[in-house]
């Protein structure tokens, strides 16, 4: 499946019932060099819109919200081991934050597809 996006610049990509979640290239560019990120531990559950992670750059610290409801099955080990650079280098690939076991697939319908998100970013 392709990626879907939130207005808060998280992306989600579904594979079976496991959703990989990260922040968009636009978000990573806006943040600048990431100096810290706090990811949730496996086993933690979130509702759509909950504070899920914190990403911090030299100029700000931002919350990352759960784009969909679900339980964390895995957090990115590379980020956990403080390799922040991956978030700037490949935000929409190797720089993913967590994998969630999705609770309600219909929540994806409310998110933007690539074209809609590109339009949304252009308007900012």
């Amino acid at each position, binding site marked *: 499946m392709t990626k879907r996006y939130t207005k808060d610049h998280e992306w989600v990509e579904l594979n079976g019932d496991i959703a990989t979640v990260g922040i968009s290239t636009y978000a990573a560019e806006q943040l600048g060099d990431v100096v*810290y990120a*706090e990811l949730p531990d496996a086993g933690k559950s979130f509702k759509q819109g909950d*504070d899920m992670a914190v990403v*911090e*750059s*030299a*100029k*700000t*610290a931002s*919350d990352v919200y759960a784009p969909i409801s679900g339980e964390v099955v895995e957090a990115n080990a590379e980020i956990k081991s403080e390799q922040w650079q991956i978030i700037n280098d490949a935000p929409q690939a190797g720089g993913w934050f967590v994998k969630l076991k999705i609770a309600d697939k219909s929540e994806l319908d409310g998110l933007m597809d690539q074209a809609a998100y590109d339009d949304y970013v252009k308007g900012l």
Partner: protein
Amino acid sequence: MRYLPLTDVDREQMLKVIGTKNIDDLFVDVPKSALLKDIVPLPKAQGEIEVHRHLQRLAEKNTPAGRTAFFLGAGAYRHHVPASVDHLIQRSEFLTAYTPYQPEIAQGTLQALYEFQSQVAQLLDMEVANASMYDGSTGCAEAAMMAARVTKRKKIVFSGGVHPHYVDTARTACEALGLEIVALPAAVDDEAAVTKELGADVAAVIVQSPNVFGTVTDLTKIGEAAHGAGALMVATFTECVSFGLIEPAGAYGADIVCGEGQSIGNALNFGGPYVGLFAVKEKYIRQMPGRVAGETLDADGKRGFVLTLSTREQHIRREKATSNICTNSGLCQLAWTIHMTLLGEEGLRKLATLNHEKAIALADALDKVSGVEVLTKRYFNEIAVLLKKTAQEVVDKLADKGVIGGVAMSRLNPKAGMDNVLITCATEMNTDEDIAAYAKALKEVLQ
């Protein structure tokens, strides 16, 4: 330009915008009994000479510490502050740049903060220190909250040796966060009792050395037990001069060391403003409250200073900030730094030794008085004594004889069941005559 306060018309318009009829509507949440009904009755205006005379008379009702044989401690200590400290902190470069609202243009202030942090980390044997807290008790409360953030647990256990006011402050600060505060019964020498409370829900054990009764404790085993249970060990203190002689809690594996810095550079100041020292293990730096000054290089490669890690502070993170401290005790912190710099390592050690010697002389003198038992076995400059009469009564009677003998434990914690326990302290300010006068007066009072 003239400054014009709000007119009645302005007020009316503002009330209209927010949808209230009159100003009183804004205070409906204040209980009626707490509202002021009339204007406070004040005397008629007086001239400067009359006001000065009146204030002088009021001031004379106080007994200055220097006019008595003075043995008060229990959280606030009378030490000598060199005149140069007061002179230097009043230099306009420091005084006007009090808090760095535009941090990078106040390089001197930032450098002073940086030096302060380095000294605190070294003194407490910790990896990192922040730019100070308001005082020891609020620092201790922040440590409790930080431990809860780090461990994601909600129970905080205080030893019976922690200053009761520190426990009270933590209770106030932690209540809204839903943290549970467990305060063990007052104990002169039982910091290790906290380990019996350890469990999967305990975020931190908070111990104190020297504790409120003056007892010095090796905290190594307590730290090991806490870590074994997944909890942090927080160590607090009220007398930072002690670390000129005894091992600070950092050497015992404490995760957070926090306490009162008043003893260095700061006078008694009627109980405040003071300066809180706060240091943590480096791995917890992002959960540490307050601000941090860091060293860096500017665009030309020259050494410079910045406020760093402030992305966690209120002006950026709002309600999600790591703590609600919004400044540091700038001037008190500067006085601390300057005094500590003047002392140096050797000076601090000498000062600490002098304090300990005076305390030994005090303990020996009081021990010889009939009806007095020295309870504290391992102390720095403060001891607890058991009296055959209630401590508060003895304190009052000693005061009549020009001796300020100490703080009754019943005053710090009326429920401790220690009505006959007196906490007393000696510093470099106490002369041999003071100690002799104390022993003589105490003998008379206890007869």
